[in-house]
C-alpha cells in the first residue's frame, strides 16, 4: 500500500509536535497543513480543530506526530508520541521523524487494526504552502464539470489545492499570539499585509457607491423616452460609437457593483475589465494630448475638406471613364449616359453639402476629439463612424447599382424560364412547366434579349461600386477588430501570468530529490503555470466583435445575385 504525505516545506525546520491536516482516504494521502507544538492540552487542540473545521468546511484532524530531534533518537519522546496516538485516535497514525540535519526522514505508521499485512511504501511530497494556497488550478475541460463541493474525487491534485486554499483561517494565527495553541505554518513568523492594499480596500467602498449612483443617472438618461423616437433610435443603432459607449457603461456597472466576487472567475473578470478600462483611458488621454498640441485639430479639419473633394473628383473621373470605353468594353451608349449622369448628379449634391458644412468642421472636430478622454476605443469608433459618413455616397451608389443589377438578374432568370417553357410556382415553391401563348412568348423573348444585351453595362457599374464598397467595409472592419482587441484582451491575467505565475496553475510538476535506499521517496511538487495562449483563451472578456456572418461561398453567391451584403453584422453576445 502506498501512502502519500504532502508536507509543507516551511515546516521542515519546525520543532517536534503534532501534525494537523486532512486525510483523503480514497487516495491514501495526507495533506499536512501545520505543526502544533508542545506544550498543549489535547482537549484544547480538539476544540480548536473543530472550530476551524466549522469555519473552513475542511475535514481537519490530527494526522500524526512529527519529531525533530537535534541529537540522536530519544526513546522517551518516541513512547510519548506513541501514547498521543491513543488520545487523538486517527487511523492511520503517521509518525515522521528527522534526525539532526539529515535530509532523509523516516516515516512509519501505526495502525490499531492493520488492514493489510504487506509493507507500506511512503512517498513524501514537499510543497510550497504559500504558493499552493494562492494558486488556482485550471484543469483541462473534462474535470471542470465535476462539482467543486463533491470532494473532488476525480482529481487528487484538485483536492490538495482545495484543502490548502480553504484553510486560510488556520494560517491567520502566528507565533506571537497568546493563544493556547502554538502552530507552525508559512505565516507563523507573522501575518504580512500591505497598508496600501488595505487603504484601497477601505476607500473603494464609498467610491463604488458614488460610481453606482452616477452610472444609474447616466443610464436613466440614456433610457429616457426622448431618445427613443424613431429617427433617433435608428441613428443610435447605426453608429458604432454608441454601441461602444454602451459596452463601456456595462463594464463600469460590473466593476462598481457592491457584491463581492463569488469565485475566482468573477474576480479575474472584474480585474480584467478594470485594467482594460484603465489602459483604454490612459491611451485615450495620450492620444488627446498629442492631438491638441500644435493645433493638429485645425490641420486635420483643414485637410478633411480637400480629402473629401479629392474623393469626389476621383469618383467623377471614374464615372467619366465608365461612360466612355472602359477597359476596351463597348457599352450601350444610352443606358451608360443615363446611369453616368444620374451618379454624377449625386456627387454634385454631395459636394455641395460638404462645402456647406465646411465652416463648422473644425469646431465639431474639436468637441468630438474631447471624447477621446473616454478611451481609445471610443476614439477609434468615432473614426470608423466618420469614415462611414464621409463615404456615404459610395454606399448609396452601391445600393443603387446592386438593386438595379438584382432586378435585372431576376428578370433574366424569369424570362429564361419562359424561354424554356417553364414557370415558377409560388404556391409550391418549385419550377413547373407551363404552356404559353404565342404573343406571350414573343414579348418575353423580346424583353429577354433587351435585358441580356443591357447586362454588361449594369454589371460593370455594379462591379465597380461593389469593389469600392468592399474596400470601405474592410477598412471599417479592421478598425472594429482593433477596438475589439482592446476590449477583450485580459491584460490583468497576462500581467499576473508574467509576474506571479504560480497564481495561474495548469498543473504541477514533480522533481525527484536525493534518495537514500530504505527511506521514503522524496519528491518536490512545483507549480506548472498556464501557457499565455490558454490564459488569454480562458479569461477573454466577452467580445462584441462583428465577425463575418457569411461564409465565403454564401458571400460570393450573394454578390453574384446582387443581394445587398452587410458582412460585419453585429453578433448579439450573451453575457457569461
Amino acid at each position, binding site marked *: *500500500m*502506498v501512502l*502519500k504525505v504532502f508536507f509543507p516545506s516551511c515546516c521542515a525546520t519546525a520543532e517536534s509536535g503534532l501534525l494537523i491536516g486532512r486525510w483523503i482516504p480514497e*487516495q*491514501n494521502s495526507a495533506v499536512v497543513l501545520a505543526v502544533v507544538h508542545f506544550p498543549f492540552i489535547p482537549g484544547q487542540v480538539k476544540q480548536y480543530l473543530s472550530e476551524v473545521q466549522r469555519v473552513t468546511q475542511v475535514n481537519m484532524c490530527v494526522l500524526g506526530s512529527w519529531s525533530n530531534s537535534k541529537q540522536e533518537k530519544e526513546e522517551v519522546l518516541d513512547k510519548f508520541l506513541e501514547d498521543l496516538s491513543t488520545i487523538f485516535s486517527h487511523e492511520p497514525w503517521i509518525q515522521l521523524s528527522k534526525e539532526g540535519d539529515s535530509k532523509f526522514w523516516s516515516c512509519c505508521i501505526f495502525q490499531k487494526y492493520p*488492514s*493489510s499485512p504487506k509493507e507500506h*511504501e511512503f*512517498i513524501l*511530497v514537499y510543497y510550497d504552502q504559500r504558493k499552493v494556497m494562492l494558486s488556482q488550478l485550471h484543469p483541462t475541460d*473534462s*474535470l471542470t464539470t*465535476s462539482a467543486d463541493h463533491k470532494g473532488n*474525487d*476525480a*482529481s*487528487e*491534485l484538485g483536492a490538495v489545492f482545495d484543502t490548502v486554499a480553504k484553510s486560510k483561517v488556520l494560517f491567520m494565527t502566528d507565533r506571537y499570539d497568546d493563544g493556547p495553541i502554538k502552530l507552525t505554518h508559512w505565516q507563523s513568523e507573522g501575518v504580512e499585509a500591505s497598508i496600501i492594499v488595505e487603504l484601497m480596500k477601505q476607500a473603494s467602498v464609498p467610491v463604488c457607491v458614488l460610481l453606482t449612483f452616477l452610472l444609474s443617472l447616466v443610464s436613466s438618461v440614456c433610457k429616457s423616452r426622448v431618445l427613443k423616437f424613431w429617427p433617433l433610435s435608428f441613428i443610435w443603432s447605426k453608429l458604432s460609437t454608441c454601441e461602444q459607449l454602451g459596452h463601456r457603461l456595462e463594464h463600469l456597472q460590473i466593476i462598481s457593483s457592491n457584491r463581492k466576487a463569488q469565485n475566482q472567475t468573477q474576480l479575474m473578470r472584474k480585474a480584467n475589465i478594470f485594467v482594460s478600462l484603465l489602459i483604454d483611458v490612459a491611451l485615450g488621454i495620450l492620444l488627446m494630448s498629442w492631438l491638441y498640441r500644435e493645433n493638429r485639430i485645425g490641420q486635420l479639419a483643414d485637410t478633411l475638406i480637400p480629402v473629401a473633394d479629392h474623393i469626389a473628383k476621383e469618383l467623377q473621373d471614374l464615372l467619366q471613364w465608365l461612360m466612355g470605353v472602359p477597359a476596351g468594353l463597348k457599352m450601350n451608349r444610352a443606358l451608360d449616359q443615363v446611369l453616368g449622369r444620374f451618379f454624377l448628379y449625386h456627387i454634385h449634391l454631395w459636394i455641395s453639402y460638404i462645402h456647406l458644412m465646411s465652416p463648422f468642421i473644425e469646431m465639431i472636430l474639436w468637441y468630438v476629439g474631447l471624447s477621446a478622454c473616454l478611451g481609445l476605443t471610443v476614439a477609434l469608433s468615432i473614426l470608423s463612424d466618420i469614415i462611414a459618413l464621409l463615404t456615404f455616397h459610395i454606399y448609396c451608389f452601391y445600393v443603387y447599382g446592386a438593386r438595379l443589377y438584382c432586378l435585372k438578374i431576376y428578370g433574366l432568370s424569369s424570362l429564361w424560364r419562359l424561354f424554356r417553357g417553364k414557370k415558377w410556382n409560388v404556391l409550391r415553391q418549385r419550377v413547373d412547366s407551363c404552356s404559353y401563348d404565342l404573343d406571350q412568348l414573343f414579348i418575353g423573348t423580346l424583353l429577354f434579349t433587351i435585358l441580356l444585351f443591357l447586362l454588361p453595362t449594369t454589371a460593370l457599374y455594379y462591379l465597380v461600386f461593389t469593389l469600392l464598397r468592399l474596400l470601405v467595409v474592410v477598412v471599417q472592419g479592421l478598425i472594429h477588430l482593433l477596438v475589439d482587441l482592446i476590449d477583450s484582451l485580459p491584460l490583468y491575467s497576462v500581467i499576473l501570468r508574467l509576474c506571479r505565475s504560480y497564481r495561474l496553475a495548469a*498543473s*504541477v*510538476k*514533480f522533481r*525527484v530529490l536525493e*534518495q537514500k535506499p530504505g527511506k521514503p*521517496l522524496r*519528491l518536490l511538487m512545483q507549480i*506548472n503555470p498556464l501557457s499565455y495562449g490558454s490564459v488569454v483563451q480562458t479569461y477573454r472578456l466577452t467580445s462584441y466583435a462583428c465577425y463575418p456572418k457569411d461564409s465565403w461561398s454564401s458571400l460570393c453567391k450573394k454578390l453574384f445575385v446582387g443581394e445587398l451584403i452587410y458582412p460585419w453584422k453585429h453578433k448579439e453576445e450573451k453575457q457569461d
Partner: protein
Amino acid sequence: MEEGMYRAVSGGRIALQRRQYSASCREFSVRCPRLQLRSLSAATCSVWLAAYGLFVLSQNSMVLSAAIFITLIGLIVYLHFVKIDQESLLVIGSLGIQMTSSYASGKENTTFIEMSQVKDVVINEAIYMQKVIYYLCILLQDPREPHGVSEVVPLFQSSKPRLDCLVEVYRSCQEILEQRKTSDFTRTLN
C-alpha cells in the same frame, strides 16, 4: 541507473537512461542526437552565400548585415523552440506520469497526468508514407467512465526510438501499472 544505446526511426543514435528511485517510481530519459556541426555550418554557409550573391547584384551592404541577423535569430529560435535535447518519462505509481522535454537552450516543457486518468500504456503502430513506425502512447480515460478511451497521448515524439527501445520502456511501465491494479484490488476488498 542503466544506460543503453539504441537507434531512432530516422537512423540516428539515441541513448536511453533508466533510473529506479523506489519500487514504484522510475524514470526513463531518451537523449536525442546533438546538433551536428556540419549541418550548422552548411546552413550558415548557404545563407551567407545567398546574401553575398544578393550583395553583388544589388551593391547594398544592408543585405549582409541582414543575413547575419537572420542567421543569429534563426539559430536562437531553433535552439529554443525546435531542437529537443532530451525527453524523459517519470512514472510514479499512485501519483501519475510526468513527461518532460528539454530543449537545447535549456527550456523545459513538462506535462503531468494523474494516475486516475491513465488507463494504460501501449505501443501503437502507425503507417507513415512507406514506413511502419511504432510509438509508445498513454491511453487516457475519463475517471467517471473507466471503460472508454478519452485521449491518446504519444510519447517520445522527437526522439522516435525504435521498437527495441520502446519494448524496454513498455515492460518497465507495465510493472508499475500492475502494482496499481493490485493495490486497487486490495483497497476494494477492504
